[in-house]
């Protein structure tokens, strides 16, 4: 399959290795990955804050840029939900733009969703091995995508992963885009609850695939729970397949896997 990577602005800026990992895993599975260089941001900040004319312009760009793609995969459930759900609200039904938005929605998947619903991978059969203790943060916008425990299922298929369920996993981490800055006290209360829940698990790593949640939770952990660090599921799988070096491993192990 020809897959266009929709990297999202936050992943590109803060977690480029998460995107590298996704590219490597998708290629390992035999897909051709493309990166449309004109992409920027899906416009979610504008949409969520009510600037729908600006959101519409950005959505139109996204739709045009990804029109040639056979399938679109993104590391972010939130941005996938923006494309799949909210783009459709920006134009009247049956308009040309609405139809184009529907077409993009139909071929866009969040990365874990792609692995589990489209590709139906079995990481056991792929002999993915990644020793370590983790807990997983389920980002809220997976709800809009109809996803719940798919990432946990994948993690449990990885040999060596000791996954401790995160208590109160359904409670939002308090990121919410500009909410975190506009209502810092409320957001602080929410992320503090999340850090407490992570502490209860005694896990070494927090697996979180959503860059926004990741910045928020890791930033709070840095102050209150510095022994826990963040990793995305793409990196866990890529490392588990030998496609990316494990932290602390060889600096030159880049081409170690080469499964494709």
């Amino acid at each position, binding site marked *: 399959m020809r897959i266009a990577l929709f990297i999202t602005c936050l992943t590109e800026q803060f977690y480029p290795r998460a995107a590298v990992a996704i590219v490597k895993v998708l290629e390992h599975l035999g897909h051709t990955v493309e990166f449309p260089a004109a992409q920027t941001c899906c416009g979610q900040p504008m949409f969520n804050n009510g600037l729908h004319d600006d959101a519409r312009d950005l959505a139109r760009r996204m739709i045009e840029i990804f029109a040639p793609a056979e399938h679109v995969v993104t590391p972010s459930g939130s941005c996938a939900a923006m494309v799949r759900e909210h783009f459709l609200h920006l134009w009247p039904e049956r308009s040309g733009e609405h139809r184009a938005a529907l077409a993009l929605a139909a071929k866009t998947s969040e990365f874990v969703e792609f692995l589990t619903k489209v590709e139906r991978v079995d990481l056991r059969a792929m002999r993915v091995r990644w020793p370590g203790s983790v807990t997983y943060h389920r980002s809220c916008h997976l709800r809009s995508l109809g996803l719940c425990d798919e990432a946990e299922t994948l993690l449990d298929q990885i040999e060596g992963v000791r996954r401790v369920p995160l208590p109160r996993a359904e409670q939002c981490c308090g990121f919410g885009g500009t909410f975190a800055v506009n209502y810092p006290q409320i957001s602080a209360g929410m992320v503090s609850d999340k850090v407490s829940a992570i502490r209860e698990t005694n896990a070494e790593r927090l697996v979180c695939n959503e860059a926004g949640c990741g910045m928020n939770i890791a930033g709070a952990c840095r102050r209150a729970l510095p022994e826990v*660090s963040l990793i995305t599921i793409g990196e866990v799988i890529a490392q588990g397949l030998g496609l990316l070096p494990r932290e602390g491993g060889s600096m030159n192990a880049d081409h170690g896997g080469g499964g494709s």
Partner: protein
Amino acid sequence: MSGSRVLTPDLPFDMSPRADVAGRDVKLQQFVNSATQIKDHGRVNACRAAFGDRYDAVRKLAGEIKQHTLDHLDVYLDRFIDNATASGALVHFAADAAQANAIVLGIAREIDAKLCVKSKSMVTEETGLLAALEAIGVKTIETDLGEFILQLDHDAPSHIVTPMIHKDRTAVARAFVRELGAPYTEDPAELTRIARDHMRRQFRSADMGISGANFLVADTGSLVICTNEGNADLVVASPRVHVAVVGIEKVISSLEHLSVFLKLLARSATAQPMTVYNTIITGPRKPDDLDGPQQVHIVLVDNGRTEILREETRELLRCIRCGACLNACPVYRKVGGGHAYGAVYSGPIGAVITPLFKGLENYPDLPQASSLCGACFEACPVYINIPAQLIRLRRLLVERKLMPGTTRVAYRLWAMTLRRPWMYRASAAFQRIVLRQLSTSSEVEDRAGVNDRVSENGRDMVSSAWCAKLPGPLRAWTLSRDMPVPPSGSFREWWANRDRGSDASRRAGRP
């Protein structure tokens, strides 16, 4: 804060001061957190046990039933009024709060009421009926235990279903000593007995009973009242005159539809399979009835509802006031319950209907103080898409120029940048430089030694540097967390190098 001003604050209302005070109140945080989490988990378990994989389908069905009734509200209201009138009830219509109160006060004067017992009714909270009755000298007793305690303590409800979610039993014990002359006890059973003894005396001597209704059944002209304490049954049956004050959106078509809502209401509100007392009242006492009021008045209240009935907000009138969205909402938890919303309806549903009832310009915070996590939508038994309604109100804030000009300009500039890839890349590069400058040298140090030092094409693709303090409006971010500093390696650079690169077999197509 005096009870009456809590829910009718000075306008425009600023949520943050109350939210901040509540956020620092450790005990309040504990009450509200544990109570809402227990209720929310209870709801999930009760609904999953009853509906299994069909939980979402049942919620959608209930939403569709109510939506259908609202789509044809004129028909069903007419049918209800005809059938209720035929049963002997007197039906009144109030366009707003003032009219609703005037009608009830008129009835009270006509029957020369001295003492009124009242069961829980959100619409009378909207109209401020209790204060209006007291003002003309009709003593009015709240008989829902929670509301009774709040009335004694001059406090205001902070939850649609469990109004004293913000109080603990020591506050109740003190109020009972002070107001009822009861001996001090913190034993819940004993406290309930004291309240019960006090209320029984009021029930026996009251001339007027005021209730709300959970549903109006059009086919039969009946009121349906659901309580766990049975207090509404005494409110209805004991005094000579019963007045039900009900919002017009409460109408459903039939008893068959009622069964769907009764199954969802109790499970969504309190995780019970069924509310303890579900009473269907059709008209006043008949000649061979053993009890019941001689007169039944039904006051149908609009008070802004026909405005909400417009197509894009109609779904909000499906709400059956179960409070599930409040229990599921992390913001409601963190702001210490309903008082922070400055209005009768709190939580996610309050955040969307209060601006519609009271003016968006008066409550600009409510639609914005949300992370849009969607927990409310997932909990709603009538499938109201509350996040979409919050976003709709945010759009109106922009359209009506209620968003501060500087904020608006900042978003427009941001959007302008995002429309131009070169500006997007330049601004990202600028951000990286600034963030690297702001991170102190100790923070650039790798805390975990070699951990996270993974390079691709010679550049670090993971950063372990952080900023502890950001300037300007982003200072709000670093009040409670650090900001990661982007790594030196960029994805685009990695992609370009690799695209040119040595490993042709892994070469990907260019867009």
